């Protein structure tokens, strides 16, 4: 199989989770770099706020970023925003990982441009699915993917008429129970 190795940057403040995600990614044949904070991630990506943003080396090219949501300092959500607001980095798919199965949080992340939202603990099958998505969709997949992603999740969770992408209906406790993000 002559697939180029995809390089994933994983961000998590938990030592345990970093070790696990690194292993999961390696087993899934990704090249892995792991950092422990959003600011270190930005440093690695060359988006240092102190330096010029143009000091990225080409062989450090990152194909996907996976970040924990709840981190001290910069949250995964804040990291996501910074990446999507960067002209140099916005094309990189960003996946959020979180233990919270919150519909509002999931929607917020997807609306901000997240490629996917995975419930922790992350499984090998999640990565398999991600890999397929990343390989199929090229660099030009921003808005279309978002719409597809939300629709996909909506269909899977069997909620009838929830096609409204602007105003969310107030989430009933039942919605919160449905594992929407891991399908």
């Amino acid at each position, binding site marked *: 199989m002559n697939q180029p190795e995809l390089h994933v940057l994983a961000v998590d403040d938990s030592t*345990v*989770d970093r*070790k*696990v995600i690194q292993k999961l990614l390696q087993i899934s044949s990704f090249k892995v770099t792991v950092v422990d904070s959003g600011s270190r991630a930005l440093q690695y990506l060359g988006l240092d706020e102190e330096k010029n943003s143009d000091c990225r080396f080409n062989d450090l090219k990152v194909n996907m970023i996976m970040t924990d949501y709840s981190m001290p300092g910069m949250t995964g959500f804040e990291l996501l925003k910074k990446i999507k607001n960067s002209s140099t980095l916005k094309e990189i798919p960003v996946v959020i990982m979180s*233990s919270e199965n919150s519909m509002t949080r999931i929607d917020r992340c997807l609306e901000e441009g997240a490629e996917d939202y995975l419930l*922790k*603990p992350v499984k*090998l099958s999640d990565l398999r699915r991600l890999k397929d998505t990343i390989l199929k969709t090229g660099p030009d997949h921003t808005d279309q993917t978002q719409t597809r992603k939300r629709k996909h999740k909506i269909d899977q969770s069997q909620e009838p008429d929830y096609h409204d992408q602007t105003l969310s209906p107030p989430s009933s406790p039942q919605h919160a129970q449905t594992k929407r993000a891991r399908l």
Partner: protein
Amino acid sequence: MAAVAQLQRQFIEYTTSLHNEGYLDDQFTQLQKLQDESNPDFVVEVVSLYFEDSEKLLNNLATALQQKIVDYKQVDSHVHQFKGSSSSIGAQRVATVCVHFRNFCEEKNLEGCVRCLQQLKQEYILVRSKLEALFRLEQQIVQAGGQIPMME
């Protein structure tokens, strides 16, 4: 030969009971599946990190709850971390206590929090000793020339 078979049976029985009693859940099995010849100590390494992390968190929690004015947000943040790492290795009972603990944090219920911390310590010590026993069994099997059975 017989020794290996007996050890392997013990291992299977012990693992099964740990799952049945809720000490470990499927996530632990998932971690075991990630282990291979290139990284035969993966599970032990992850669990060691968990032990280190947990002991720090338990100390931090004790300190936080002893403050004159308790910062419940800080306490909750520690518990959230503990819940996360416990879920990541499949330490189900510990994770469950964390859920209750967070509820007490939200209510700013000091007594509830203190009780939960005690429970948390107990459950942590329990799962730690069980995991250590499991790893010892694994070592014995390997030393006797056998293979560690794959649990489904």
